[in-house]
């Protein structure tokens, strides 16, 4: 888990999620944003441009498309400047070309993904259909860091962490939120000034460095992948994060991420009132998945319920990591549709 450093005085504001993200990027030390308009993420670029009007050290570029935005982010990071982008849905698909290269060249890009509906163009509103794409959207192994946020405060806190983690570990890093979180207003505590310069932020492409991601032989690239994987596995425990709610004696474990986890929390309270020993395990990092944190509960768990606004993208991550568990597992899937605490409570009650 990466600690966030609070340098300035905190102030509480009531802000739209997308505006929080831009302000958080500023406080994290970002200097340039590359973007392309797409609902529900557009206000991030608009807010950043507002900030850059007040601070001439900030730059922004509205690129010709998401590919250009993604690759320009890579270019700026190669020069040693914290840069970021933001997108959603079909834009996220187009940006995978850049993110895949960021994985290959170990470039610390930061991207805010405001999930809208999937398949394809779909709705401009909400889903959790971009989990698989954000975690593994390349012709590789998903050497990425993905933070799934669940509140306005998370948007702020995990943006700070994302920049820190990206430059510390040199894996492309994502803040995975959604249209609800981006467009919703909420209370957030933020520092009033930006943090100190991160010592890990240094030029990558400098004198004496020749970078490629094209290889002649199968063995050459095979070795690169194995080395990256070893490094990813070596540091993953430092990155992994999960929120545990009422988990101490929980036997019925709800697993949900993002805003669905926020809805699952009151559901746990309702279930507890009925005497059901429920708890919530919320993976905050979807990549790397907080496997070790969950493993603590293997002795006590009697039932697992995975709840998500997609058809099994979260449960796929869970199963891939914890395949040996012999515990009944129920999935509550509402692809591209949100959850209320009451319906989670009712559905789980009916399973008992």
């Amino acid at each position, binding site marked *: 888990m990466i600690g966030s450093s609070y340098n300035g005085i905190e102030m509480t504001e009531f802000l739209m999620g997308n505006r929080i993200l831009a302000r958080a990027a500023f406080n994290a030390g970002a200097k340039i944003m590359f973007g392309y308009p797409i609902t529900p993420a557009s206000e991030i670029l608009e807010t950043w441009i507002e900030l850059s009007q007040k601070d001439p050290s900030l730059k922004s570029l509205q690129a010709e498309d998401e590919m*250009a935005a993604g690759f320009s982010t*890579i*270019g*700026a990071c*190669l020069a040693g400047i914290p840069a970021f982008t933001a997108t959603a849905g079909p834009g996220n698909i187009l940006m995978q070309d850049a993110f895949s*290269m960021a994985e290959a060249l170990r470039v610390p890009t930061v991207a805010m993904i405001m999930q809208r509906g999937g398949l394809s163009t779909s709705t401009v509103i909400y889903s959790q259909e971009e989990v698989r794409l954000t975690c593994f959207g390349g012709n590789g192994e998903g050497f990425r860091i993905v933070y799934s946020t669940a509140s306005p405060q998370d948007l702020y806190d995990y943006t700070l962490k994302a920049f820190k983690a990206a430059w510390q570990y040199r894996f492309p890093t994502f803040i995975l939120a959604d249209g609800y979180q981006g467009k919703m207003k909420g209370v957030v505590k933020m520092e009033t000034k930006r943090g100190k310069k991160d010592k890990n932020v240094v030029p990558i*492409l400098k004198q004496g460095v*020749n*970078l490629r991601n094209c290889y002649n032989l199968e063995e050459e690239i095979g070795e690169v992948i194995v080395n990256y994987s070893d490094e990813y596995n070596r540091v993953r425990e430092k990155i992994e994060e999960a929120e545990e709610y009422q988990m101490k004696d929980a036997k019925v474990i709800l697993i949900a991420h993002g805003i669905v986890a926020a809805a699952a929390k009151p559901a746990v309270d309702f279930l507890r009132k009925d005497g059901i020993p429920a708890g919530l395990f919320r993976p905050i990092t979807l990549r790397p998945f907080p496997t070790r944190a969950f493993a603590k509960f293997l002795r006590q768990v009697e039932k697992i319920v995975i709840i998500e606004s997609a058809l099994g993208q979260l449960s796929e991550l869970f199963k891939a990591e914890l395949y040996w568990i012999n515990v009944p597992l129920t999935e509550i899937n509402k692809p591209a549709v949100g959850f209320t605490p009451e319906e989670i409570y009712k559905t789980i009650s009916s399973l008992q």
Partner: protein
Amino acid sequence: MREKPRFPKCYKIESKPHKFCPGCGHPLVLKMLGEAVDELGIGEKSVFLVDIGCSLLAWDYFNLPTAQTHHGRTIPVAIGFKMADSQKVVIAYVGDGGAYAIGLHHTLTSCLRNDPITTIVVNNTLYAMTGGQMAPTTVNGEKTTTSPEGKNEEAFQTLHGPEMLTGIANKNAFLARSSTDKPLVLKQYLKKALETQMDGNYALVEALSACPLNWKTDAKETIQRLQELEKVFPLGEFKR
């Protein structure tokens, strides 16, 4: 009296002999670029970005910070780098497929914005690395693996990059085409293009180049074909 062969100072000698095919035009373009960088004394502040396709073989050609990126995306990477470090001279080295097909919108947009970067397009009228397929620059009647009957210009016009950009370029931008058949002229254009960037403006130089492997030409035919191409793609500077 003996004289050692003189390589540009910015060459990375350890990576020589280079990886290009015998007779390829790339090494000539790169040699002229190396000399241009040396003569302008900008080796310390130049950054070299290369596309995929044959241009990727230059990923360790120079002792310059170099990164190989993707099909046409070299241009946005260059723009991002330049925005982050405006003191650097940033060079995007791409093929005709990268600049005029898959990355055409990046070429157009960076010209529209007068981005202070230098794009070098090596035009051999086809996709060489992938085995000689048709490109937007494939000329009328040219046979490629995907136009085996010969390209029909009635159905697909031939793209002339620098000329096309004259319609949208800033008045201070530099647009030119030379040929590997006229390397010293090419070098002058490359120098001008780098100087244009240092003055804060956009520059694109196209170098007509040869691909004997995919053209299936011997040495003599290669030169002849290059000279014929110079009639289809006029050499010179192009002004708005």
